């Protein structure tokens, strides 16, 4: 597709920033890869150490990432990688005026990882969205259910193998009593 006059490809710069070095020193086994493309510091870590890395990012005064900005997933189905999904976390530290991106590779047959909603509350809904859109299961999440789609929806719409023009049957209107029993619940 890309012809002879496409833009010159720019190599991804590979230099360890301060945070990367800190994490590599603290979790030598967990850090799989890192880069700083367009000065966005990115660290790829392995799945099982996500929760402890997140606690470190939140608690340690050298990191102090107060805000968990965003959780999302990239489906790498068409990119010929060994893993299917990549979890992407964005953090912001106000104390050190820094940002960091943490990525976690996930395999299709075992796409589950630890929830970080007990560290940052904002993770709660973002994880629900990732579950809804990609079917990633977050272990230890207090209330993992669909958020943007409805309960009866089948499949996970943002996966690359979900066809864009697929239609699903309309749901019958439910009587409100089916969902809640007024006054009798407590």
């Amino acid at each position, binding site marked *: 597709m890309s012809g002879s006059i496409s833009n010159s490809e720019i190599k*991804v710069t590979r230099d360890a920033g301060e945070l990367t070095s800190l994490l590599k020193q603290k979790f030598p086994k967990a850090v799989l890869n890192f880069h700083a493309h367009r000065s966005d510091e990115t660290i790829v870590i392995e799945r099982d150490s996500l929760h402890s890395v997140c606690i470190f990012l939140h608690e340690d005064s050298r990191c102090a990432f107060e805000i968990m900005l965003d959780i999302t997933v990239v489906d790498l189905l068409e990119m010929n990688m060994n893993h299917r999904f990549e979890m992407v976390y964005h953090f912001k530290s106000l104390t050190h005026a820094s940002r960091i991106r943490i990525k976690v590779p996930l395999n299709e047959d075992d796409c589950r990882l630890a929830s970080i909603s007990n560290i940052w509350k904002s993770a709660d809904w973002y994880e629900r969205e990732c579950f809804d859109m990609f079917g990633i299961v977050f272990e230890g999440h207090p209330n993992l259910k669909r958020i943007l789609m409805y309960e009866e929806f089948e499949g996970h719409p943002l996966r690359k193998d979900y066809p864009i023009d697929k239609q699903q049957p309309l749901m019958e209107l439910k009587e409100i009593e089916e969902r809640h029993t007024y006054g009798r619940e407590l």
Partner: protein
Amino acid sequence: MTDMTTLQARTGTSSSSTDFSSSVMTIEIGPAHPAMHGIVRFTTKLDGELIVEMEPEIGYLHRGFEKESENSKWIQVIPYTDRLNYVSPLLCNIGYSMAVEKLYGIQAPRRAEFTRVIMGEISRITDHLTCVGAAAMEIGAFTFFLWFIKAREYLWELVEEMTGARLTTNWTRFGGNSMDLPDGFLSDLEDRLSKLESIMEECDKLLTRNKIFIDRVKDVGAISKEDALSYGFSGPMLRACGIPYDVRRADPYSVYDELDFEIPVGSTGDCFDRFLVRMEEIRQSTSIIKQAADKMPAGPFMTDERMLHYPDKKDVYGNIEGLIDHFKMVMEGHHPPEGEIYMPTEGGNGEFGFYLVSDGSGDPVRVRLRPPCFNFVQAMPIMTVGHYVADIVPIFGSINMIGGELDR
């Protein structure tokens, strides 16, 4: 959420559903009403009129923005971004275009950047005018709403003059803007801003020290600094809690580092502080627009890099490179280099960040928007529990929930 056992002990909750005076009832509020900012449903548990527990449910305006974008070309996403935060569409256009520019590693020319600052701040003002005006109307200040909508109209006329549309602007491009400033725009701008300022002055007298208004919003819906950070707040909602985080200052983009502005902060993080912060931000944005208009440099409004825009007609008809570029642009479109970026910009509601992944093939692999009001709606329970049902309206009004960006 709340301590149910003490509440039950206090109210002596019985299991009988007929005993309304003392039982905690589940009431569905919505989909819709809470003064119709957008469609959400709150499943609330009420003890009389006191909210004991609440669970927001969203997704009623989900249109699959991300799926649709990933099945489009890069340039085709710009019109979709108009529909994200539809009260400040230009900020969404700018946010997306700057994200793709970061992916390319280019910058728009200075004239384009200054124009973006002006149009972006106009959008921020219209966003705040809508939010504050509507929130005030819902608790009875109808005159205030009409005055603010009048002011918004002045600004939307400016937007129309610039882009040709009031809401569906589709204005920015990668590496510049689709149009330069029209003739006489800057003098119109000055005129409209002076009108806005007089309206702001009038409305300030009308509401800021109005006892009826203050009684409805003071100490209502307060959230602590720690909770606000944990919930990932940004924008006016976070600043109302006393944390001066503004992407324009924290990670300066465009030409904001050359402009002089203050970041207003509140102290308690209640609805009244949010109102005051937004009012002050309107004034600060007015000052930013004036500075940018004064500093407006001459020059091109579109980058001269090849393969980012259609070449000039004289090149298309005059030389072979121009003709090839034109053909490639029509047939293949943009090819941002391989990579991933996150570009935060300050939207009307807070940090409006795009996370883009490109594999260099010309089709986006991932277009992700970080919606600022997602966090606000998530935090509705801790803001409302312990208040009365009637307080849902001012609290929900003050978070400026925009369905388009919340549900995408």
